[in-house]
């Protein structure tokens, strides 16, 4: 084998190997930088976001319209501040509402957007005022058990009267 072709092949091999390593580091590992198309940011404050994570989907009517950009704790209002990057081709009225929803019972969490009726549209940096936090399963179960116990109690007293 010719010396120069041999060097060429080994060079290609080494570069491929390093490219694979870089892909593992940046794309698979957490040394990531997000490449973005054209988007605009909106903010929403939730009382509880559950398991919502960065880069979680933002859906409207089930269609992916954006991604969660950052999740942080707002020390002024003591709630969660979620910044979302919405695809620039989708416009939402300013009175739209956002809620943290779950796909399936144990599935991942996402932000659902419901469009309002206002003529004005959300712009970059606007805040979605109507925001409903995540359902916390423990609270739901607690509430259910509480209601059940109340119902059971009233049934017994009703029987006792008979």
């Amino acid at each position, binding site marked *: 084998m010719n010396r120069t072709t041999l060097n060429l092949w080994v060079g290609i*091999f080494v570069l491929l190997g390093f490219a694979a390593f870089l892909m593992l580091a940046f794309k698979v590992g957490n040394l990531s930088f997000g490449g973005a198309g054209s988007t605009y940011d909106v903010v929403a404050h939730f009382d509880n976001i559950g398991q919502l994570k960065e880069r979680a989907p933002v859906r409207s009517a089930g269609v992916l319209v954006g991604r969660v950009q950052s999740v942080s704790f707002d020390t002024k209002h003591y709630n969660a501040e979620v910044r979302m990057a919405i695809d620039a081709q989708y416009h939402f009225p300013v009175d739209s509402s956002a809620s943290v929803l779950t796909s399936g019972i144990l599935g991942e969490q996402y932000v659902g957007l419901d469009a309002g009726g206002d003529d004005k549209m959300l712009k970059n940096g606007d805040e979605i005022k109507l925001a409903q936090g995540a359902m916390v399963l423990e609270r739901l179960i607690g509430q259910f058990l509480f209601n059940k116990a109340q119902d059971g109690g009233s049934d017994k007293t009703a029987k006792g009267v008979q």
Partner: protein
Amino acid sequence: METILHGLRTVGDTTLRIVERIGAIVLFLGKILRYSGPSFQRFGLVIREMYFAGVQSLIIILVSGLFVGMVLGLQGFETLQSYGSSESVGVLVALSLMRELGPVVSALLFASRAGSAITAEIGLMKATEQLSAMEMMAVNPMARVVAPRFWGGVISMPLLAALFGAMGIIGGFLVTVVMLGVDSGAFWSQMQAAVDFHHDIVNGMIKSLVFGIAVSAIATFEGYEAPPTAEGVSGATTRTVVSSSLAILALDLLLTAFMMKGWN
């Protein structure tokens, strides 16, 4: 009584021979390191061996990586779907590839593809008395033949493992996101949230480097110590594959046990 004693003697003899062989390989490794100087002064020799060990293993590594990733994606999706968390399939594919399958499977493939070739080549050089001829010309065969092959293997192995892992993740992505319709953002974001650069990726690379050293040392040792007959060379080639595979799996258990501490 006599049969019991005979049995015990056989066990003792086998154990001693295995320990002796491991010791001989470690001593041989020391000898390689001692004569490694010329390999780095004339790096062209190592590049030549990287071509034979690394570049020629590319196809088998890339294709196997793709298939392993695809199978992981399919199996993981099937199981995770019944818990409604099929988005986590990216985590499953990436973690199993980075921590175990990438380094181990690529090292096993490397041992059978490149290790056996190294053993056969050196063994045949010995059988045809090329090594003795070199010694006659005052060329040290350790420095001229063995060390470049060793370093070519050691440098190629982590690169091949990285390529295997990357191809596996592409395979998993193709099956789960493109074919089965898992959300692509959730696939990557959950993967990025779960895979740690240091604990998973760097540790995987360390594993593959250790496997590369073990496989290259065993392959060159078996070739160099092969009986100079056709039968001897064929036996040495088989032994390379068998003992490399065992060494890879045993070292993997050891390294995993040490690295586990960092995971929790």
